[in-house]
């Protein structure tokens, strides 16, 4: 089983440890991971802002990278629900006017997976075979849950970690308020929404909050840090990859 990692521009530039943890985790689970350094971005920032021309240009580039990768890899794995959604669900729409690219996008979509979805649904693995301590809760990122219908896979994996107490926060699937450039265009509103999420996290009494999207984690962590909170934010890959010493 060989997969090609689409690390995402956010992880590549800001949270490379998430990419690293993804590689370690998948390798430990018996998967060979390859990486094409020509990759850049799925194009979502432009698409979400209504700039479809630019989104198409970048998407077309990424589509070519994927086409090449899938000639020698079985799947493309993405440690991000929103990027996986862009590629799987929105590329066919984005290239709706270009029959060739649309066909490529439709052909590629079933072979692109968000990380937790890949582990549980494709590898059939629900036990992450690792151990940690402490109390952990999970935040459902919006695209992952509502567009990709992934919500039990990450929970299964988290619950399988030996020594960890998994607790559900209230309103786990309510938006963190990031929304891409929304957080910059409407910063106070974005923060106000995030504050509700922080309140849910604090009510859960968890020491760590895990999510499958670095964008959500960045938003949540940004607010937690400013409050001087001791709650840690971790990507699912990081939580499952390293064994605590």
């Amino acid at each position: 089983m060989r997969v090609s990692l689409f690390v995402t521009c956010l992880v590549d530039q800001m949270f490379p440890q998430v990419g690293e943890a993804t590689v370690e985790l998948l390798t430990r689970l018996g998967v060979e991971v390859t990486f094409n350094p020509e990759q850049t971005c799925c194009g979502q920032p432009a698409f979400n802002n209504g700039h479809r021309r630019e989104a198409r240009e970048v998407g077309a580039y990424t589509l070519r990278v994927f086409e090449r990768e899938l000639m020698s890899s079985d799947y493309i794995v993405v440690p991000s629900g929103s990027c996986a959604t862009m590629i799987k669900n929105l590329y066919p729409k984005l290239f709706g006017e270009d029959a060739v690219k649309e066909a490529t996008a439709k052909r590629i979509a079933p072979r692109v997976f968000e990380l937790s979805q890949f582990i549980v649904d494709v590898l059939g693995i629900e036990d992450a075979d690792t151990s940690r301590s402490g109390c952990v809760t999970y935040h459902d990122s919006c695209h992952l849950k509502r567009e990709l219908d992934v919500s039990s896979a990450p929970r299964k994996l988290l619950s399988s970690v030996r020594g960890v107490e998994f607790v559900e926060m209230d309103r786990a699937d309510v938006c963190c308020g990031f929304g891409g450039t929304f957080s910059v265009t409407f910063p106070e509103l974005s923060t106000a929404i995030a504050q509700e999420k922080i309140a849910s996290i604090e009510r859960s009494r968890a020491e760590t909050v895990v999510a499958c999207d670095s964008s959500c984690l960045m938003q949540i962590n940004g607010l937690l840090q400013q409050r001087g909170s001791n709650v840690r934010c971790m990507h699912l890959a990081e939580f499952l990859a390293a064994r605590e010493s």
Partner: protein
Amino acid sequence: MLHAIESENFVENQRGALENPHLQRAMTKATEKFVAARVKLEAGDSAQWNRLRNRAREIKELTIANLDHYLDEFAANVERLGGHVFWAADAEAANRYITHLARQRGVRLAVKAKSMMGEEIGVNHALAASGVEPVETDLGEYIVQLAGERPSHINMPAVHKTRGDIAELFAEKLHVGRTDKVEDLTSLARRLLRERFASAGMGITGVNFAVAETGTIVLIENEGNIRLTTSLPRVHVALMGIEKIVPRLEDLEVFLKLLPLSASGQKLTAAVSFLTGVKDAASEEGPEEFHVVIIDNGRVEILANPHLRESLFCIRCGACLNACPVYQKIGGHAYGWVYPGPIGAVLTPQLIGRKRAPDLPFASTLCGACKDACPLKINIPEMLLHLRHEIKEGSDGVGASRKEERPRRTRLIRQLVNLAERAAFKLWAAVMQDAGRYRRAGRIARIVQRVFGQRNAAGDSTLPIKRWTRTRQLPQLAPGSFTSRWPEISRRTKRETND
């Protein structure tokens, strides 16, 4: 009163809303309650509700695809049974018909049931200007009418007011001693409104559903004011958008289950009125005249746009409002016009012109809670994305309407920002299509970061970053990108595997 359209000032208005802790408390309490009620009822049999939602969509798809046919059928039946139908192209035409009718019938007082269409066309203002006093009889509408405000929710017009607000308002406007007890407030309003029902020459309602097959209009309520509004006055005027049609009576079963569920977590409302025709000579009860004003006001253009047509499926339940994390925080008035929340963000730019509400489609994280909550499974996030595309890259021809006027205050700043944004995305696209450029950009950004250091405090850095750091810690570029570290990562994991 005629309220100004404030959608252009959305950015300012939402900020003001966030700084109002009073509003925050009221919104949180109300939306939580209604979401909980809906979720609870749905959880009882989610498979059944899903089937109903799918069926409702089917009915709406069929209806919207054949709207002209069903509208004609409806109108013919209304007229056959003694009613009058007026086809209003826009708000002005509708108001002219209604005020003319009121004048002809010597109406001095009109009682109104809650009608979002009434708000949309500004019928109260038109009536008052022609010497007819309009009195809202829905308690929530009565409250906002007293306060001189627009409703801030599709179903709960006064959701932005606490009980204390209402007590104060009643004491001030009705010249009574202040009471905070709900029963006392309600019975006071009821007493005052009873007198108005009896002396009103006209009753004005909206329409929840208009049945083509029988020429019946259906109205649902919990307060009883609709029963009175449609029974006591001699003349009943019903306002409806062209999309309120359902083909047959039996189609109502689905909608009469979904609307109360989605609006207030009820299995059914306290009263459901099926109003067909007018009384004949023998019957004593009911109005003598029945007028249905069928209103376009921009809906035909929505119909013509295949990407946005689905917004006509809306049955005005308000579930999307209650579920929306943005609406929960800013309330309805910030949206600046009649329809707030997710559906408001889709309808308002279409009905009043994209140039008059350019911020609304962007005031969303696209979380999809609205789509989940919607009884018709309307894909609001997809439509918001399409509106963003139309606004940023120019209309694709369909949708440009006579309403696309220049905003009252042409904003030079907005135009400059748009230009800068377009340039920024062009640059971004150029970088992201070329691995070499992308890597170089990363290196340059890291140099910049090292030179200027970690910025937390506002006022230190470029505008977009400042807007983030005003409220949060600024995240940093990692010292080395994943791509740059891949060779080492790859070696290490291969080594560990081989151990």
